[in-house]
């Protein structure tokens, strides 16, 4: 139902603004780089130590010493820079990165996010996510609206261990674009093509706020 992963990435790409430095998380966020709008110059930062990250390499250019935070082989664009991990997180903590896009297991209506641990089951670690969400002024979560069991990932409060509190500003899912309001609540901004408000309501467990006007369809 609704968008596929590429559709979510395309919709998030519309949020990019000229001159922004952007950190893209693993999974759907990584795809955003493929759909930068025309006339918009952005640079991608990967927290393992590159600014000016380019696309995957051709076979002959693969370099084990050149990877992104997802451990994927990448390329460096002209004008790129390499640096160490403390410099990388200086950029992130110091608010030099204008946008962070990352995935989530759960988001709460006050902007808390959980994406690093399922107690007793999955403990992969937070990597750079806690630094990113605690620091970024502008965080977009890219995720499916519900989990594999069909349960809503937009909750009144997170059930999983938190990655950060009061930090998520916008969520783009397969069903909708939602703003997390400063006083709490998921405000419905756009519907995915052919997805009804009722479908979004039934897939959202946290407080969903629907304004008076019409809710437009995403253009992707």
């Amino acid at each position: 139902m609704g968008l596929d992963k590429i559709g979510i990435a395309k919709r998030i790409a519309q949020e990019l603004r000229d001159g922004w430095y952007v950190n893209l998380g693993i999974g759907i966020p990584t795809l955003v780089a493929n759909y930068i709008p025309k006339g918009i110059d952005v640079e991608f930062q990967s927290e393992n130590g590159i600014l000016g990250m380019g696309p995957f390499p051709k076979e002959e250019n693969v370099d084990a010493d050149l990877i992104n935070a997802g451990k994927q082989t990448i390329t460096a664009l002209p004008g790129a820079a390499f640096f160490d991990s403390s410099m990388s997180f200086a950029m992130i903590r110091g608010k030099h990165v204008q946008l962070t896009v990352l995935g989530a297991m759960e988001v709460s209506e006050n902007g808390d996010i959980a994406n690093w641990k399922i107690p007793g089951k999955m403990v992969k670690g937070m990597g750079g996510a806690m630094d990113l969400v605690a620091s970024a002024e502008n965080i977009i979560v890219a995720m499916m609206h519900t989990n594999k069991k069909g349960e809503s990932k937009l909750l009144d409060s997170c059930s999983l261990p938190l990655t950060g509190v009061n930090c998520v500003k916008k969520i783009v899912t397969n069903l909708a674009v939602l703003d997390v309001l400063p006083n709490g609540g998921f405000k419905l901004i756009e519907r995915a093509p052919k997805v009804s408000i009722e479908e979004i309501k039934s897939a959202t467990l946290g407080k969903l706020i629907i304004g008076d006007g019409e809710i437009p369809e995403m253009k992707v």
Partner: protein
Amino acid sequence: MIEKKVSNAAEACLDIKSGMTIMLGGFGLCGIPENCIQALVDLKINDLTCISNNAGIDNFGLGYLLKHKQIKKMISSYVGENEEFERQMLSGELEVDLIPQGSLAERCRAAGAGIPAFFTPAGYGTEISKGKEVRDYNGKPHILETALTADFAIVKAWKGDTAGNLIYKGTARNFNPLMAMAGKITIAEVEELVNPGELDPNQIHTPGIFVQRIFEGSNYEKRIEQRTINTDN
């Protein structure tokens, strides 16, 4: 110049003992000290506390030490992609301390820089902040994190000279320069070891003062975790 050259990993790691705390550079398998990891396996020491961003994969990187049950405790930020790690952790054989990646990096640098503690927003409101001092700056809560040191830091560089100066390549830099600063004794293995004067002093990433032992490594495998290729024409 002060001479730091040793002949190989075995000589560099000779006095690393069971029960010690060791920092190892690298992000995933990128920029890891392959030669010294092998030397630690060969030493058959155990009960190690390892500080490293990741825990390698099964059978390579730190996964190799895990397989031989030489590690008592891992201090890392991300430990996915490693079944043996998960098994040891869930069974309680292995202690694990997970730290936000930026805090891990900054805590190493802080140790090397004589900064015993600093405030960071990372982890506030999560289980990471439990028991830690919280203070508001610029209207935002921050937690106090402390410096992280180790008996030995083991780093991998691209080029080095016998005075201990290091240059890293690409994203293989990552934690290496920070851990080089933080070790009581720092061992550097490099792909190419040259004489003092052959590296441009303007381009040194780790000044030799932080390095106590250096050698030219051999047989680097440099495995790739995610070989992603652009097949467009």
